[in-house]
């Protein structure tokens, strides 16, 4: 596959992302922060679900752990709330580390359960973590939550203060602008790591385990260890996404990490195309930005009633459109948005073969995968291993 157009495309995107804060209004900057936080989380989830084939509905729980650990680590202790007062970068590392550790602790469950069963077990995790957040008040601040310290790096603060005034090319750079670049760096890092992990030895092992545990074991892959490592990596990503969300909000509360958030992460990776890092990022953009943009610009849609007048108001319409968009993508686009994009490019650009990205588990009938029973008996089901 020719890499040049792709590289140029990536470069243009990067330059645009770098230049955007010069022109965007606060609304778009804030939205961008949420989108980038979602991207980081979605990359982690697509590695777990798309590449390693373990469904998780508990991503929000891990994001919550990352967010709260980050805030705990970077806040000074007060009489009512505990804090470690660590530097922000250390806090970030601690947040990712602790979340990955929690993921590790949960991985025995992950190695016992598969597919949708694991998904539902992790769904329980969201409720358990929420219960803990509400009840461990000395650390979490309970229902009302706690505020987030601005991110500082060597005396430079990613907020409206320190320096109080900073302008680049005549545009005043406030907290949102500064955070944009911090988020951009971390998102790129997460993306780079994700792409490399996916094509690394580990990533190929994950995909093998997904396609057939028995075959993977026969090839000498330590199945349990790789299932656990996928869970750990994905949890780490969720932890980073949580810390970013905390910074984007400026305040944390358990309501930020509801089941809806878990579900939205899943929608992102499925809409984008399972197993693809780029797809996860496109999906994150789609799911996070679409409802807000629709709401914001709904005045431009003619036939809608004014808010509060009882008719079909813009917000309801935007929610309906959002639901319809999800359905349309799943019914009409094989491989999600990236799959459609690849086919489009395949048709016009004469690029490489159109590889449908791997799905986590196939439709029934299921390939029985008892060790020592049969391996890869259903050729129709064994999938091309995602690159």
């Amino acid at each position: 596959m020719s890499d040049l157009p792709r590289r140029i495309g990536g470069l243009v995107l990067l330059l645009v992302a770098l230049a955007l804060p010069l022109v965007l209004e606060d609304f778009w900057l804030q939205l961008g922060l949420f989108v980038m936080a979602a991207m980081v989380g979605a990359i982690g989830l697509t590695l777990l679900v798309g590449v390693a084939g373990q469904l998780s509905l508990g991503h929000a729980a891990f994001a919550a752990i990352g967010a709260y650990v980050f805030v705990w680590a970077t806040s000074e202790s007060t009489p009512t709330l505990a804090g470690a007062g660590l530097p922000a970068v250390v806090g970030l590392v601690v947040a990712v580390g602790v979340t990955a550790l929690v993921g590790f602790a949960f991985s025995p469950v992950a190695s016992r359960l598969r597919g949708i069963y694991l998904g539902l077990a992790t769904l329980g995790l969201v409720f358990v973590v929420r219960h803990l957040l509400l009840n461990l008040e000395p650390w979490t601040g309970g229902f009302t939550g706690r505020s987030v310290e601005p991110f500082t790096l060597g005396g430079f603060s990613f907020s409206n203060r320190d320096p109080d005034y900073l302008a680049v090319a005549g545009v005043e750079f406030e907290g949102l602008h500064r955070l944009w670049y911090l988020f951009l760096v971390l998102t790129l890092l997460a993306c780079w790591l994700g792409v490399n992990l996916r094509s690394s030895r580990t990533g190929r092992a994950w995909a093998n385990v997904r396609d057939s545990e028995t075959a993977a074991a026969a090839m000498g892959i330590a199945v349990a260890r790789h299932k656990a490592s996928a869970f750990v990596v994905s949890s780490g990503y969720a932890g980073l996404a949580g810390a970013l969300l905390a910074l984007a909000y400026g305040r944390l509360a358990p309501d930020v990490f509801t089941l809806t958030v878990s579900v939205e992460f899943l929608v992102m990776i499925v809409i984008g195309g399972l197993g693809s890092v780029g797809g996860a990022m496109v999906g994150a953009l789609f799911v996070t930005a679409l409802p807000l943009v629709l709401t914001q610009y709904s005045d431009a849609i003619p036939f809608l009633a004014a808010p509060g007048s009882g008719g079909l108001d813009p917000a309801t319409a935007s929610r309906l459109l959002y639901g319809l968009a999800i359905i349309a993508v799943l019914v009409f686009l094989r491989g999600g948005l990236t799959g459609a994009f690849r086919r489009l490019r395949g048709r016009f650009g004469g690029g490489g073969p159109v590889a449908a990205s791997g799905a986590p588990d196939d439709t029934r009938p299921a390939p029985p995968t008892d060790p020592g029973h049969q391996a890869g008996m259903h050729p129709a089901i064994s999938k091309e291993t995602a690159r």
Partner: protein
Amino acid sequence: MTKTRPALVAAAACLFAVTACSTTEPESAGGGGSGDVETGTGVTDSAISIGVLTDLSGPFAAGAAVQVTEFQAYWDQVNADGGVCGRDVEMQVQDHAYDPQKAVSLYRSMSSDIVALQQVLGGPTSAAVLPLAEQDSVYVGGVGWASTALGYANNQLPGASYSIQGANAVDYLVDELGIEEGSSIGVVYYVGDYGADALAGAQHAAEERGLTVIPQEITPATTDLSAQASALVQEGASAVILGAAPTQLASLAGVLGSQGADIPIVGMNPTFNPALLNTPAADALLANTYSILSVAPYASDEPGVQEANALYAEADPDGATGWEVPLAYGQAELLKNVLERACDAGDLTPEGVVTALGSADDVDTEGIFPDGLDFTQPGESPTRTVFVTKVSDTAEAGLELLDTFEGPSAKSYTFG
């Protein structure tokens, strides 16, 4: 992926950015403004822009729509009478659908065009927006009555906080409904700032009055309160205070009635909805249910309430009636009062409006809120007086005004 070239470009971009950097603030021309009023964001020579962040497609959509209609009708009338400070007041409405992430983004889109937020509806949403608005020194009204919002100097609480409502509920039970010292009362409350605040007030009052509290925490998804009701009956509760929503009230009243527990139920401000009188629980509700309100009920004959109702009836003749109508009118009245104070002080910037809020003492709303609201004490409820109402099938909107009430424990309650 891409390796050296982007890195080079990025480095170049950084270099460019650094050379274009500046940390010295250019001399700002100060706020704009004509005449002797200083103005800033959201105020021009002819218009004042205010924002409403509400929930028009989520769980509180219908009640929120009533309030938006009433806000609009109020400001239309104000503009017809010459506006505020010689300017028309224009209202921008955005729908956050009870989602904090949307609320924050929509706040960002609004904050550069408005001078004040008339309303940010909802617990999690207002909790996310309030700190941002405080940083930007933007006035925020109408976030409900949780004491947690009192910590923000830019917030105007429309009447007594939930804790004051809860304390008054206990005082009223003891002083007027004959609950004796030594008995125990149930408090069924939502997890969160609303329920926990009501519980805190009730607990303080129970201690003062020698009662025992039996707490029962629930969530909005709890629609069948059989287990909670049985537990309260078992522990011998002689009254129940409810910090939840209408669905829970109907279930609780119905189950208590069916278990033969003839005990009073006292709800907080958002606990009642006239539609409950069409449900099987109607008889139980009519027998025993009271509601403590921070705002005068729809059926009050105070002039402010009458005016609010008339305005609403004209704006939406088929609209649902309820305590939202006078509340929305009263909140708009509070904001108008603050804007006028800011105008008189010659500072209509967002900061000026927040300062004006801090100077607002003895605010009178013609009976919509208790008289003499005092916003000069940050962290304190603006009043300790509440309206006591009883569910009634003859009163309009289902609540009959019994009394305005300020109990001893409500007076002695301390915030912080």
